[in-house]
């Protein structure tokens, strides 16, 4: 899986107080893998959204474990999160209806929607022993003129 690239891996035990540490870890890893600021933001937000779903819904607010891996294959950055909370399939979550006012929308679902917008591929797998695994892929972007 590492195929000549560095693979970054860290385990986050706890609850939503881990989100800041998760974003920091993901940001540093994406930068080290050659990501530009847009890649860093896309991966940080996606990891945050996946982790908050795990902590708040999968583990129902009880302390739980989220494991994260990041590596590159050719020009594609891969972000993988694994958790062992309650069964959940992101494919069952409908996207928000952007045409109606937010007050009329149901709460939730925006995180997965953002993840799908910011990443090029989203894959979900569930295994009784290995837990639920979300694998997100993003082709590394070129630096934009606005990037410092």
């Amino acid at each position, binding site marked *: 899986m590492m195929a000549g690239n560095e693979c970054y891996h860290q385990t986050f035990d706890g609850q939503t107080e881990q989100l800041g540490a998760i974003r920091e870890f993901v940001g540093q890893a994406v930068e080290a893998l050659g990501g530009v600021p847009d890649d860093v933001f896309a991966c940080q937000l996606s990891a945050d959204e996946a982790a908050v779903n795990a902590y708040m819904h999968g583990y129902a607010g009880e302390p739980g474990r989220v494991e994260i891996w990041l590596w590159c294959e050719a020009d594609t950055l891969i972000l993988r999160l694994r958790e062992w909370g309650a069964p959940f399939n992101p494919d069952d979550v409908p996207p928000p209806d952007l045409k109606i*006012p937010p*007050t009329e929308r149901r709460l939730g679902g925006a995180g997965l929607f*953002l993840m799908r917008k910011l990443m090029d591929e989203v894959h979900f797998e569930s295994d009784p022993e290995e837990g639920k695994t979300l694998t997100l892929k993003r082709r590394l972007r070129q630096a934009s003129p606005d990037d410092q």
Partner: protein
Amino acid sequence: MEITIEQVQGKVPVTILHVRGNVDGSNFNDLTEKARAAHEAGARNLLIDLSETPYMSSAGLAALQIIASLYRGDGTGEGEEGWTVFEALDDPRTQGLQQRLKLLNPQPRVDSVLELVGFKDFLPVYTSRDAAIASFS
């Protein structure tokens, strides 16, 4: 994240929540609760200042949804005026109706999130504090 409250007087009293720091799943309830406490204390026109908020996840969006519902036109979250708080900005049906929740100066990453989920079609966003305050009537 820290939130401070400022009261200012425009055409009508306006409450400003200054949000400093990232808004995520660990703290979005703090934002909701500050807005709720202000509403219970009588605030009816709310400006959320995002000048110093570099990052907001969908948890922050959920907070904005809850706050928008709270600041519905009649102040109770019930009744016919309820939908006016977050109605489409270019919808002719809403012309002349007042929006009670507005945002000030969202930073680029936060702005892009608001754009992606379509909030900017419904929620007034200002870059000038004076213009934002003056817009409430």
